[in-house]
């Protein structure tokens, strides 16, 4: 009997949504679970999806009648991407000069690091949807930046209601 091929990240990635929604059939469900158990990247994605799923379920369903989404963002926000440090970002994004300063600081660090030091490995290849926000502003409402890891897809989320209008 031939052993089944182990699932890779490429195999698992398109199935993660369906996994969280319990839409997969048994064998595939187990294969995704097995892969995620040994893959930190897929496991993290899965945890994020589950957190989103739970936050949406608890708020979306409970308030389905009144459809009051005002409490949704405060709940989603801390769970979406803990590593993103969005609040700090927003402040920095307002000033292009800060980016200039950062670029200068990065260049200085690079040149001062010395030849014997092994350079830190950074992502050199741009992801297909990579976007760099140089400046951002909004008249009223709140906004936040989210970024998807795999393709680098950037989302600017604006939550603006009539109450937010200055």
């Amino acid at each position, binding site marked *: 009997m031939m052993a089944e091929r182990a699932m890779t990240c490429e195999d698992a*990635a*398109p199935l*993660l*949504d369906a996994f969280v*929604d319990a839409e997969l059939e048994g064998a595939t469900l187990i294969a995704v679970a097995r892969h995620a158990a040994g893959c930190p990247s897929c496991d993290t*994605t899965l945890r*994020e*999806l589950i957190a*989103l*799923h739970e*936050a*949406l379920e608890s708020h*979306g369903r409970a308030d*389905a009648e009144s*459809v*009051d*989404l*005002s409490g949704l*963002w405060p709940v*989603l926000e801390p769970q979406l991407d803990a590593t993103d440090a969005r609040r700090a970002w927003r402040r920095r994004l307002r000033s*292009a000069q800060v980016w200039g300063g950062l670029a200068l600081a990065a260049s200085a660090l690079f040149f001062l690091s010395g030849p014997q030091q092994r350079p830190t490995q950074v992502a050199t290849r*741009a*992801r*297909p*949807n*990579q*976007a*760099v*926000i*140089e*400046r*951002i*502003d*909004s*008249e*009223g*409402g709140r*906004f936040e930046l*989210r970024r*998807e890891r*795999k*393709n*680098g*897809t*950037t*989302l*600017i*989320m*604006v*939550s*603006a*209601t009539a109450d937010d*209008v200055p």
Partner: protein
Amino acid sequence: MKRVGVVPICVVTILLLSVGRGVALEVQVTAVEASYEGPSDPQLLQLRPRLRRLVGYRAFRVLQDERRNCPWRSMAAFSLPGGRLVHIMPKGMRADEVMMHVQVVHGLRALVDTDLRLQNRGVMLIGLDEDVQAPGILLIMLKAVE
């Protein structure tokens, strides 16, 4: 003396920036309704996992799709459902990135006003959650192709 030098430098810079690129940038603006449940449009099925990861909603439906050539350094307006407008001004190319000024306007309010660089042929999203009475959000997908 200094001013005399600045003008030629600016002209040369603009000419250099213009070399090797077309007269216009192709911009695609797609308005997508994201909601908790319901079917997703077949053309969005490939994007669905990515959208799902970013916004948490499950169902995605295309409301409007417009593709247009936008001349460099000119503001182009794309209308969206609900009386909103997307203003896009392609500013130039840097390496393989498109530099753009993007505004999403609703009435007199600029909901988003941003300068950004997007990978050529890349897609980025702007999500609008303006109406607390309505379930779901409006997603604006921007794609720029040089």
